[in-house]
């Protein structure tokens, strides 16, 4: 099944999107941009940026704003107004409809729009790596039946099966995810490159009804750019007495600089325009350098922004609604990035406008979502779950050791080898936990079982392999296997991922809240484990080769070990107190061990070797512990 693409067929710019992995995504053009100019040169078949670049050279053959002519009569107001600004020839065709004459050939607006759609189709095919046959195309809410019909025909000419024609504000509302909400009335404020539209939509049960629409078909970002260019030229003339508007090369540079300044001033309050060697005067080069503040820009374009308010008022009046009836205002079109525009909208409607979706892409994204709904794409996707919380087991010192981390896509399986915590430990308890806290007791217990029959062996020697296996339905199988005897125990826990959202949220928040305390607790446990290891290892050495120490040394070491052990067992032991005792004991052990080695070295008897081994065991055991951890009990 091929994908249905969503196309925003705009007056100045167009964009394409598609559903991918359950979300709508913009398809980049062959030129690597997210939108492309709706400009066509039909003779050489150039579309987009390429057509725009040859526009100056080939103005009579280059068509822009063809959307204004879609489904229009030649005698109509819209066609006549477009004729005034268009350098290409517009004439009366079949049934008096507006057509375009290029190089003696007649093109209908549908054919020209089809070229734009063909580029959209080609870019989508290159991106998706397959044929694209179906599309959802957007039109302004005010388009009448003949304009919609013309748009559909354009799609058919382009070889696209037009699954649906969707209103632009509806698509924008879809992109903002408003279809999931309750019944409410929203305003879509769309200030694009060349047109301004405001629509009032009533949403309810997945149905979008356009209650009213208004706008200005000749107001957009280009007008804003012109204001800035005029200002820069005037300022330069004031300062240098040179009129840059006569110099096409300089004007081009100012145009680029003005657009950049406009964009910069949306995020910063001041920008600098630097164009060295912009022109010459009396053989001397002149540089254009000027600071523009956001306040200045806002002053320059204030009347343009204010022009959008009247249509908003009219739309509200047409819908017989008051500002307070509006639940949400969403912003569409690149110009709505301007803070002043957002401010004016906020002041008028009395609420903060929603600007969470990229305003240039919202309409195309919404069209793609509509396409996804039609094709049932969402149902077709095999939705894989993730584990909402970490799964692990309790190890020495009541520490939670994670096996399957939070947000792991299931099905998933993980194994880790653990060992015993004390000598000749006959069994281990596998205590299965869920949660984000480092201490076992702070997490949720999912279950536990005992693996017994472990042959007598020193601590750290038995190898117990613990495996967590969680299937796609969230059923967790935990098994523990003694590698020496192959004896195995297991438990099945159902609904390991099935927690209510509130529960997950609470556990995550708690983990954050107690992060600092938990870290301290964990550090203390680690320190205590370290102390325990030292006590056990040293006692072993004293027992095995106690005859190598004199009685005084032995009792001194034993005293230090007893003190350390007592400190560890104290309920009010702190990291510092344990650490102090641990240091004393370690230093003492090291001192006598050194003396012992020295004595052994002097005697140089091979029989001393095993004792050296006995000492060397200590760091080895510590290493093992760090890697594997030990199971309690």
């Amino acid at each position, binding site marked *: 099944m091929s994908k249905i693409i969503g196309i925003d067929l705009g007056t100045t710019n167009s964009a394409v999107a598609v559903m991918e992995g359950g979300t709508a995504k913009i398809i980049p053009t062959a030129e690597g941009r997210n939108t492309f100019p709706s400009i066509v040169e039909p003779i050489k078949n150039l579309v987009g940026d390429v057509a725009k670049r*040859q526009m100056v050279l080939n103005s009579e053959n280059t068509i822009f704003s063809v959307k204004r002519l879609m489904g229009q009569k030649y005698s109509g107001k819209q066609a006549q107004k477009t004729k005034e600004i268009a350098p290409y020839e517009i004439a009366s065709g079949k049934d008096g409809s507006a057509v375009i004459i290029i190089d003696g050939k007649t093109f209908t607006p549908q054919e020209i729009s089809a070229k734009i759609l063909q580029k959209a189709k080609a870019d989508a095919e290159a991106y998706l790596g397959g044929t694209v046959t179906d599309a959802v195309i957007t039109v302004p809410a005010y388009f009448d039946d003949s304009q919609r019909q013309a748009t559909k025909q354009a799609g058919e000419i382009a070889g696209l099966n037009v699954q649906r024609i969707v209103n632009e504000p509806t698509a924008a509302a879809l992109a903002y995810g408003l279809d999931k909400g309750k019944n409410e009335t929203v305003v879509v404020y769309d200030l694009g490159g060349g047109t301004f539209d405001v629509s009032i939509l009533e949403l309810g049960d997945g149905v979008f009804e356009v209650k009213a629409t208004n706008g200005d078909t000749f107001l957009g970002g280009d007008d804003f750019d012109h204001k800035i260019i005029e200002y820069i030229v005037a300022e330069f003339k004031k300062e240098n007495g040179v009129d840059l508007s006569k110099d096409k090369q300089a004007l081009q540079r100012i145009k680029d600089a003005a657009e950049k300044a406009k964009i910069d001033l949306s995020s910063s309050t001041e920008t600098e325009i630097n164009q060295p060697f912009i022109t010459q005067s009396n053989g001397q080069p002149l540089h254009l350098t000027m600071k523009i503040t956001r306040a200045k820009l806002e002053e320059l374009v204030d009347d343009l922004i204010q022009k959008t308010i009247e249509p908003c008022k009219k739309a509200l009046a047409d819908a017989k609604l008051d500002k307070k009836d509006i639940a949400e205002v969403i912003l569409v079109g690149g110009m709505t990035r301007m803070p002043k525009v957002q401010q004016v909208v906020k002041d008028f409607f009395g609420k903060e406008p929603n600007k969470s979706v990229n305003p240039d892409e919202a309409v195309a994204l919404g069209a793609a979502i509509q396409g996804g709904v039609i094709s049932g794409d969402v149902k077709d996707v095999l939705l894989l779950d993730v584990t909402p919380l970490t799964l692990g087991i309790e190890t020495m010192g009541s520490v939670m050791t994670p096996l399957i981390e939070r947000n792991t896509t299931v099905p998933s399986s993980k194994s880790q080898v653990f060992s015993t915590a004390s000598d000749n430990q006959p069994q281990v308890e596998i205590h299965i936990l869920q949660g984000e806290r480092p201490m076992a007791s702070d997490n949720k217990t999912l279950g536990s079982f005992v693996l017994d029959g472990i042959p007598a062996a020193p601590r750290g020697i038995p190898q117990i392999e613990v495996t967590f296996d969680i299937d796609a339905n969230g059923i967790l199988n935990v098994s523990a296997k003694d590698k020496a005897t192959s004896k195995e125990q297991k438990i099945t826990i159902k609904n390991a991922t099935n927690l209510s959202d509130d529960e997950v949220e609470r556990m995550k928040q708690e983990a954050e809240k107690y992060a600092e305390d938990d870290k301290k607790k964990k550090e203390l446990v680690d320190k205590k484990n370290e102390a325990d290891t030292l006590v056990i290892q040293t006692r072993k050495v004293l027992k095995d080769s106690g005859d190598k120490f004199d009685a005084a040394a032995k009792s001194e070491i034993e005293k230090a070990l007893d003190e350390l052990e007592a400190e560890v067992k104290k309920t009010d032991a702190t990291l510092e107190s344990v650490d102090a005792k641990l240091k004393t004991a370690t230093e003492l052990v090291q001192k006598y061990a050194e003396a012992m080695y020295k004595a052994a070295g002097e005697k140089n008897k091979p029989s001393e070797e095993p004792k050296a081994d006995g000492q060397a065991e200590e760091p080895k055991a510590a290493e093992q512990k760090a890697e594997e951890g030990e199971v309690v009990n």
Partner: protein
Amino acid sequence: MVKKTHTSSPEVVSLNAKVVELEENYKRVLADYQNQERRFKEVQGQFVKYANATLLEKILSNIDSLEMAQKHLQDAGLDMIVKQLLETLKNEGLQLIESDNKPFDPLTMDCIEVVPGPKDQVVATLNPGYYLFDKVLRPAKVKVGSGK
């Protein structure tokens, strides 16, 4: 030869159908994954190759300024610096779009002005264009002849 005939129970039939369906689903998921992996590798390669594009595009305007200064000052030292800089960037995949006296090509050039001169031929390059590897990083801004 004995031919064994037996009628499958409805349960077996439905289970068989289920197996086929699941196998199909499994293959599709596997194919999806492999395709995704392949595309990821491709994209990753592209990403590394063109990671500098945004930075280079910004630096180009500084190079423009240097070149304009050089045009005015005609300083041998500055000339060397500009050439050095371009050489460094060439090693990173930046390449000049030849535009002077070439036929106008909208794929690589942007026509700013039409002036008397040979028809559809570049009369002057106002701002040089550059490729980054095989992509147009910035089209050349040119004056094109009107044929008059």
